[in-house]
């Protein structure tokens, strides 16, 4: 008997509008609201709503035997509230089935774990509180932005009370180990690590509609055949992917929804497969070994490192400028400023500045609203510069008021 563990990532960044330097000092609305709304409503219609309905139908049909998990960023939840409240309702419905786990992460899909333990902890707590409020669940499993993982990050995560954490299971990270077992974190062995089976996950997420793939077309029965193959080692198959896989990256006409509609039944009828949430899986199995990565790894690109976000001078400069004002933002603790500080954290802004794909930009262009990394950097820095000017003005105001009243 093997256990299938589904986790779907739900995230939409708050995209910045075209912000020229001459907007500075005059215009403090940084977001591209029409685009954010259009994308959210489009993805809601193509993916979130139909896929949530499909999952709900399958959970009900199989009477609790079909289970999945989600990690939903704070920025996505905010945009559900504003642009597509019906999506939030459908997630609540899923939560009410008891077969859906909501994972913890940073509120803003940020890179804080790489630089600032306090900031990271605060953002994770804010996200956990949001999950509690929206879905009535306190997350016990953690997934970091882009599955970024290192031993020290895992230790921080364990210290916050999480029982399990997700990570990438690519070959060059795991070596001879299989991703199909539960592992224990190196620095705090009470924390269980679940590793993404990248081959079987990407068969659905990337290759499903690829007609040049020798396995195309992929049917639920064929896929279940792979999951039950006698030579597949381990207890557990972790299928981790972006939720937008369903209906967005793989459009409805590829048959992705039909595939997912038949997969639970096809799996359960073999009597060799069952479904579990990450928390259940982490509890069900003893760790096979220690999982250790002294340097940060992620689920991105061939390298599985963090150079997609912090790799070139532009990204490093923008990131360090942002973190340079952290103390000021927290001292001021003004809701308007906190709001901007939050969405500026989002890893997507840094991803748009990446230059590593000048030669093979396909996947990356798809997600990128900018024509070039330079445009992305210029726009981000203009917004950040205005934010910093306003922050200083506000601080001066506050100080003046305090002095006057004293």
């Amino acid at each position, binding site marked *: 008997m093997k256990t299938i563990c589904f986790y779907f990532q739900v995230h939409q960044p708050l995209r910045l509008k075209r912000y020229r*330097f*001459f907007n500075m000092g005059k215009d403090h609305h940084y977001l591209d609201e029409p685009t954010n709304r259009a994308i959210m409503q489009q993805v809601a219609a193509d993916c979130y709503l139909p896929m949530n309905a499909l999952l709900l139908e399958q959970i009900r049909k199989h009477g609790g035997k079909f289970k999945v998990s989600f990690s939903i960023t704070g920025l996505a939840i905010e945009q559900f509230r504003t642009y597509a409240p019906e999506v939030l309702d459908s997630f609540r419905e899923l939560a009410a089935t008891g077969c859906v786990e909501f994972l913890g992460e940073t509120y803003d899909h940020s890179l804080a774990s790489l630089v600032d333990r306090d900031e990271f902890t605060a953002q994770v707590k804010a996200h956990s509180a949001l999950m509690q409020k929206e879905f009535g669940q306190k997350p016990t499993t953690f997934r970091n932005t882009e599955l970024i993982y290192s031993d020290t990050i895992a230790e921080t995560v364990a210290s916050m009370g999480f029982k399990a954490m997700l990570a990438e299971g690519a070959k060059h990270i795991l070596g001879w180990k299989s991703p199909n077992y539960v592992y224990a974190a190196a620095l705090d062995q009470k924390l269980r690590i679940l590793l993404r089976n990248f081959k079987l996950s990407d068969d659905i997420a990337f290759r499903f509609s690829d007609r040049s793939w020798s396995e195309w077309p992929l049917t639920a029965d064929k896929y279940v055949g792979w999951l039950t193959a006698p030579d597949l080692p381990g207890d557990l198959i972790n299928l981790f992917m972006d939720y937008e896989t369903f209906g967005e990256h793989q459009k409805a006409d590829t048959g992705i929804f039909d595939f997912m509609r038949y997969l639970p039944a096809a799996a359960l009828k073999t009597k060799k497969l069952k479904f579990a949430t990450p928390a259940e899986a982490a509890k069900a199995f003893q760790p096979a070994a220690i999982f250790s990565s002294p340097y940060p790894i992620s689920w991105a690109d061939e390298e599985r490192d963090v150079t997609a976000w912090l790799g070139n001078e*532009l990204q490093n*400069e923008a990131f360090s400028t942002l973190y340079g004002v952290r103390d000021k933002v927290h001292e001021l603790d003004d809701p308007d400023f906190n709001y901007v500080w939050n969405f500026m954290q989002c890893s997507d802004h840094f991803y748009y500045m990446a230059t590593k794909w000048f030669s093979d930009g396909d996947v990356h262009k798809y997600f990128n609203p900018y*024509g*070039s990394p*330079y445009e992305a950097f*210029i726009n981000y820095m*203009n917004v950040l*510069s205005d934010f910093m000017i306003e922050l200083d003005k506000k601080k001066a105001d506050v100080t003046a008021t305090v002095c006057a009243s004293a």
Partner: protein
Amino acid sequence: MRVLMFGWEFPPHIAGGLGTASYGLTRGLAKQGVEVIFVVPKAYGDEDQRFVRVVNASDVETPYGDRWQDDIRERLTFIHIDSNMVPYISPEEFETERVEYRSRPGEMKGDIWKERYAFSGKYGANLMEEVARYAMVAAEVARKLEGQFDVIHAHDWLTYYAGIAAKQVSGKPLVVHMHATEFDRSGEHINQSVYNIERAGMTAADRVIAVSNLTRRIVIDKYGIPPGKVVTVHNAVRFDRPAAADTERGVSDKIVTFLGRITYQKGPDYFVEAAAKVLKRLPNVRFVMAGSGDMLNQVIRRVAKLGIADRFHFTGFLKGEEVQRMFALSDVYVMPSVSEPFGISPLEAMKSNVPVIISKQSGVAEVLDYAVKVDYWDVDALADAIYALVKYPALARMSATKGLVEVTNLRWDDAAAEVADVYRSII
């Protein structure tokens, strides 16, 4: 493989990018083992009655302080045809300049091409006649050289009749090279006779080489040339020039430079408008416009009207060393061309470690990842890019260092190898 090549300028006496490209290409071809006979118009004036002279490479003044290596020298021959064909001006301008020159004999103007070509009355009555006369001489050259070349290569419309004539007398295949189209030079108000010559050249040619995909598109769409015979070979940049010596800067301000002919094609007016926007927000920047052209007066008036003349400077036409010094002084180089078939000058700027902003409507944008690219008409985006390069040092640093690496990899040797492949496909 031996090629008979018709050009119309060659360093060090050049007025624009074509001479530089001819130089890089012929050297590259010679390194590939291709023998090049380069025919170029040269006005000798009245003192000598010969129409054609054969000049060995060793007698040609070497530009940029290069030396002709022996193996390259052996493969290069120059033929000068006595002609006053003038590059970069329209037939109408040719007429005006000629009349103007005649009215003020003896007076030389600053532009290098005017120094080079003496308007003595010995030549054709207008540019078109001169082009035709050049073609007749070219036919004679081709006849004399019979058996000494396998393919004919003609650069830009001035030499297309020469190319066609050479093909007719020799029966050898013809390659024409589009460095610019009449649409790039004149926008939609094209000179019909120039267009006709371009089209005749490309129709008669066995292959058309376009300097960018942008140009290739124009050749196919606006001249109706079958796509199958149009090949893109991007230009490259010379890489062995010694870096410009450190130039002492007189001012601590950041300097943003436009360097090129001040004509419609180069988009100088967009540079001015962007400058005005930047100057409203940044006090420590100066703008320099280097070059001359028919829009200069208009641009000066606009600068005055915008009230930015104290921070916007004109240098006039710069040559050789001065260009290098200008690059060395620059913090940002801008090429806002409305239509630029390729555009060599941003590559020269990048070689001098200057971050560049280029218009998306330039062929060179196709080969550069590390240049900042904007639409030429998007003055806001241009202003924003200038502001960012001045204000965010990380951007300027990365653009300069990565740009230098990128530009160093654009070799004439590689471009010449592609051109040699084009020859091979038709002989």
